[in-house]
């Protein structure tokens, strides 16, 4: 930046500078020693989460999760899909693939159970709603593209990546019949409302899904042959929780390139809204119990190599421990 004339130095207050040139503002912060993010966090620091469960009165399970200024409420509600009345009569009802995604994931026949059954019957209904006034960018009405993509990422995590819910736990059978026959299913409606959005909605929303599912208790449902309908037992003591698979948590990262003179990149854990708006490259790591890597998503740039990914996995494993401790203590 050498120049023969002495350029007059223009100075702006930080907030003006941030608006004027967001990426230089972020870079300038990360170039300081030690590197510090505009929020005051170090690059590898996640925001401290909190979890509260079962605070909603009409949901079968619920959780409120807050990570910094990102806050979501997740409610799980069970409703009954009857196989005996309506069009989808008895078994052998027509199974319709609901989206092209089913094919990508490799559809397994209904009888095999697992993901195929859940998908074919639409037993798990996940939706993320951002049109709540959680941020100035999202308005009430049909979901934005971002909400739709995030919803489908969550849905995929739930059904494919983690196989958290087994279809058996949702079947309602006629136990008195000679041959056990599935008469109905529980359908789990998982609705996630973001009430405050400051970046990294995925990690927070996913944690809320996990916590809400773990807090879910459904009434005992049985087939009443006389009424020819599924009936539930109002006895609270007979409500049961869901049989859930291994815990899994996600950790998201923003990769900022060109920080050092050598073009070195910096990986930011748990990016906030401003950092997300500036960064072009992102990484998501989903870790299952035992530190197993369940999924890695990466997109948008080339700065993060193997070494960087390794760093992400390392941080995600630590993050898993934080979430696990929190989820477990929230449900004592």
């Amino acid at each position: 930046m050498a120049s023969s004339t002495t350029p007059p130095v223009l100075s702006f207050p930080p907030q003006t500078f941030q608006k004027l040139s967001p990426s230089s503002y972020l870079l300038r912060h990360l170039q300081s020693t030690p590197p510090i993010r505009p929020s005051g966090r170090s690059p590898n620091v996640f925001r401290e989460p909190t979890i509260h469960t079962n605070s909603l009165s009409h949901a079968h399970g619920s959780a409120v999760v807050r990570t910094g200024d990102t806050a979501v409420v997740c409610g799980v509600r069970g409703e009954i899909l009857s196989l005996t009345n309506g069009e989808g009569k008895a078994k052998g009802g027509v199974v319709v693939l609901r989206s092209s995604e089913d094919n990508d994931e490799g559809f397994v026949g209904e009888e095999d159970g697992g993901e195929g059954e859940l998908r074919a019957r639409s037993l798990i209904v996940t939706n993320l709603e951002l049109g709540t006034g959680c941020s100035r960018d999202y308005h009430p009405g049909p979901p934005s593209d971002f909400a739709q993509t995030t919803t489908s990422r969550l849905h995929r995590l739930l059904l494919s990546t983690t196989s958290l819910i087994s279809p058996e736990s949702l079947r309602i059978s006629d136990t008195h019949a000679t041959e056990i026959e599935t008469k109905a299913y529980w359908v789990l409606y998982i609705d996630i409302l973001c009430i405050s959005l400051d970046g990294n909605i995925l990690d927070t929303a996913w944690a809320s899904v996990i916590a809400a599912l773990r807090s879910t208790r459904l009434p005992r449902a049985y087939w009443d042959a006389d009424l020819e309908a599924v009936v539930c037992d109002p006895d609270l003591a007979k409500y049961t929780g869901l049989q859930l698979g291994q815990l899994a948590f996600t950790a998201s990262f923003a990769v900022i390139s060109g920080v050092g003179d050598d073009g070195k990149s910096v990986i930011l854990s748990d990016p906030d809204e401003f950092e997300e708006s500036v960064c072009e490259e992102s990484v998501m790591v989903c870790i299952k119990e035992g530190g197993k890597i369940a999924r890695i998503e990466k997109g948008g740039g080339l700065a993060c190599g193997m070494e960087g990914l390794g760093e992400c996995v390392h941080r995600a494993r630590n993050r898993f421990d934080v979430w696990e401790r929190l989820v477990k203590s929230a449900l004592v």
Partner: protein
Amino acid sequence: MTDRRRINGPSEGTTPPVFASAVVTKPTPTRAPDSLRKIFLKTSLTPPATGSAFLELPSPAPYPNSSTLKITASVYGPRPLPSSAAFSPHARLTAELKFAPFSTPHKRRGYVRDAVERDLSVQLQNALVKSIKTGAYPKSGIDVFITVLDCEGGLDGDDDEGVEVGLMGVLAGAITCASAAVADAGIECVDLVSGGVAALVKRPQNSDAMDTDGMNAPMLVLDPSPADGYQILSAAVVGYMAGREEVTLLWTKGSVGILDGEEDELDLLMDGAIMTATAVRLVLNEAVKERMLLGLARSKGKLKEDGGGDVAMSS
């Protein structure tokens, strides 16, 4: 009709659980008729918004038989109107109230806005607009978003069995919560608006005493809840500016008689709702001050955190 932009449930449709012995015994009222529930009200819980608030009426009994009211409000603005909007010499206020899918009893709600939500949104907007100095903000918009996370029911409306006060409670809570969020946003208002509900109920029959004619007069209940178990004859909700002693909204349901001379039921009902709103106002006052006090304390610490200096930008 399925919404292809969301993940939908089974096309065959699902039903909420039906319970074997649906013994719906109405609870017997335990609260004193004039006692108000404790309100939890806190501002600035949605930091991206210009102003925000959260309101909760905690439930007295444990999960899952009791229901509570939980409402969030966020306010954006004054901000530029969309370019398609016509010039407006004052701020345009919009209010949008939405119920979360899991907020209502019995059945999950869909995401598409229905008539109840539209009706409450318009009522809320009318109740608020009278308090805001819209003239101070030419050609701008002030948008209020309300999300009902949990409510006490009442969406099915009234029938021969009695008046539903659930929605009135939602509206009253939404008014209080939204007014707190508007104040939190630093938008100029002539007063704060608080909501209050009152109901006239059938006097619970004393099992011992014989029902005498004189005891048949309805009883006034402040801040009624559907969970109280009263048979509600009529109910009213007001939006009230206690500082100016002015009503910005009145909505009554159920038949109220104007008795000759003696006690006018409508007066009783309205005054009861105003009494509730006035009590709620005290909570509202404290809630809007809280952030300022916090802000005063924080502003000192914040300076250090920022380093206090400008980031120089050389050309």
